[in-house]
């Protein structure tokens, strides 16, 4: 009962934060510098890890697909499997998981420490809403950066699959036939579909991490707890939302 209550309370708090931030949307042009900084943090600095992870997801997908499909002589379809799985599911999902781990935790830590060290209070007395200068630029940045991360993740993942297809002897199909299958079965709308998912995930992750950070109470010890909570809640939300968003977008 207590847990349920805290969940409902959390949802309420997040929704409130969303509306408060959205109400300041008009101030975004004046917060351009902050927006760019958040774009840098969310997009640019996250790129290397996204690229590395996507590459290996692509290779593993191709490897597993090669193993499974060899059984009924459908190795030519490895490209389509890797292409579709990357674009529709694994690209958006894993990028969002990384975002939760890398950006979400940083956001939660930063806002939690600002709360603990009274910086948020100082903002309040200055009549500068945290939702406006701390949350809004991050939400806008994640919306802009997520598609970029996703398209890079997709392409790197596809490329990873082709490397395995070419150089691993148990798979052994030519990159030409790999990409031909990929192109034939992966449509641009699948990529768009994945981006839509990623936008939802990224937005929710950032929003939830901001909310958890801003609601930290107590001393410095709570900063760590807030980060843990933010990441756990983000990961759960990504997977739960994944089902529903996929269902809706179908």
């Amino acid at each position: 009962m207590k847990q349920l209550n805290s969940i409902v309370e959390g949802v309420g708090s997040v929704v409130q934060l969303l509306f408060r931030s959205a109400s300041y949307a008009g101030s975004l042009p004046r917060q351009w510098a902050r927006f760019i900084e958040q774009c840098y943090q969310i997009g640019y600095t996250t790129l290397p890890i996204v690229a590395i992870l996507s590459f290996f997801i692509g290779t593993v997908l191709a490897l597993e697909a090669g193993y499974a499909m060899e059984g009924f002589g459908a190795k030519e379809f490895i490209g389509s499997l890797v292409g579709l799985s990357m674009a529709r599911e694994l690209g958006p999902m894993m990028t969002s998981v990384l975002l939760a781990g890398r950006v979400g935790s940083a956001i939660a830590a930063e806002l939690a420490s600002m709360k603990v060290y009274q910086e948020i209070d100082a903002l309040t007395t200055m009549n500068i809403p945290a939702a406006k200068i701390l949350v809004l630029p991050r939400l806008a940045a994640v919306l802009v950066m997520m598609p970029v991360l996703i398209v890079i993740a997709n392409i790197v993942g596809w490329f990873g699959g082709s490397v395995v297809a070419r150089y691993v002897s148990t798979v052994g199909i030519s990159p030409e036939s790999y990409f031909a299958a990929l192109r034939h079965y992966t449509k641009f709308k699948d990529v768009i579909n994945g981006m839509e998912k990623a936008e939802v995930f990224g937005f929710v992750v950032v929003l939830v991490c901001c909310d958890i950070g801003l609601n930290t109470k107590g001393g410095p010890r709570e900063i760590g707890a807030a980060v843990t909570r933010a990441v756990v809640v983000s990961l759960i939300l990504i997977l739960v939302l994944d089902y529903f968003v996929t269902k809706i977008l179908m």
Partner: protein
Amino acid sequence: MDTQMESSCSKTRNPFTGAEANAVSVKVDHVCKSFSGVEVLKDISFEVIPGEIFVLMGPSGSGKSVLLRDIVGLDVPTSGTVTIDGQDPSLEATRDRVRVALVFQDGALFNSLSVYDNLALYPREHRSGDEDSISQKVMHALKILSVEDAAYKFPSELSGGMKKRVSIARALVMEPQLLLYDEPTSELDPVMSATISEIIATLKNEYSVTSIVVTHDRALAQTISNRVGIIMGGELITLGTPAELFATKDPRLVDFLNPKIDIKNPRFKKLESTKPS
């Protein structure tokens, strides 16, 4: 009601632009505050009239900072009310109308921003003037507190005393009508403490800024305050002019205001003797 009337005749002038605004009054009415059953503030009532310097003194942990947070609207009292010019300070509408600045005990500077940006944040966000006039204001405020050399440093590179001064400078840039200080002179050397006292007095005399100062600094209380309230154990035990207060015979206050260092008969020995063995 008389505070309201007084507020209309007393004006604050913006220390930098000279623009005038009404000085504000603060009314603390039967405020109680408890954290998970523990009473921190017990039925505190007082009024701060516009343009006065009100000093709150008391031992550490007596609830002064909590009271300050209630006044500035960061927390809400468990019972009782706090009003600034008759309005609830925790509402955003009140903050839109009345500029209230709080100098936090440990500065509460924005660690991700340089000192300059810490000060410039408020005028930038509230669009008071272009970047040139903001720069002028910021550098002026930093100069007053002689921390202009630290303008492009980050808070993490500053000493505790410098942080405090930057924090006061940040409050000045806000051009407040009501200024609250939480231990403004702690961690400062005597000269800087004196400077802070002078700044508070100047703001009061020339610009009629209402100030509430939580401090342990006897000199500050004695020289510049209009009235002093002393809180002990969450209760406001006395309220009066500094002259009255320092002339009191109340043994609790005498020991608090003029503690004697008695090496032969130390306090901690007395405390030990009261402990059950």
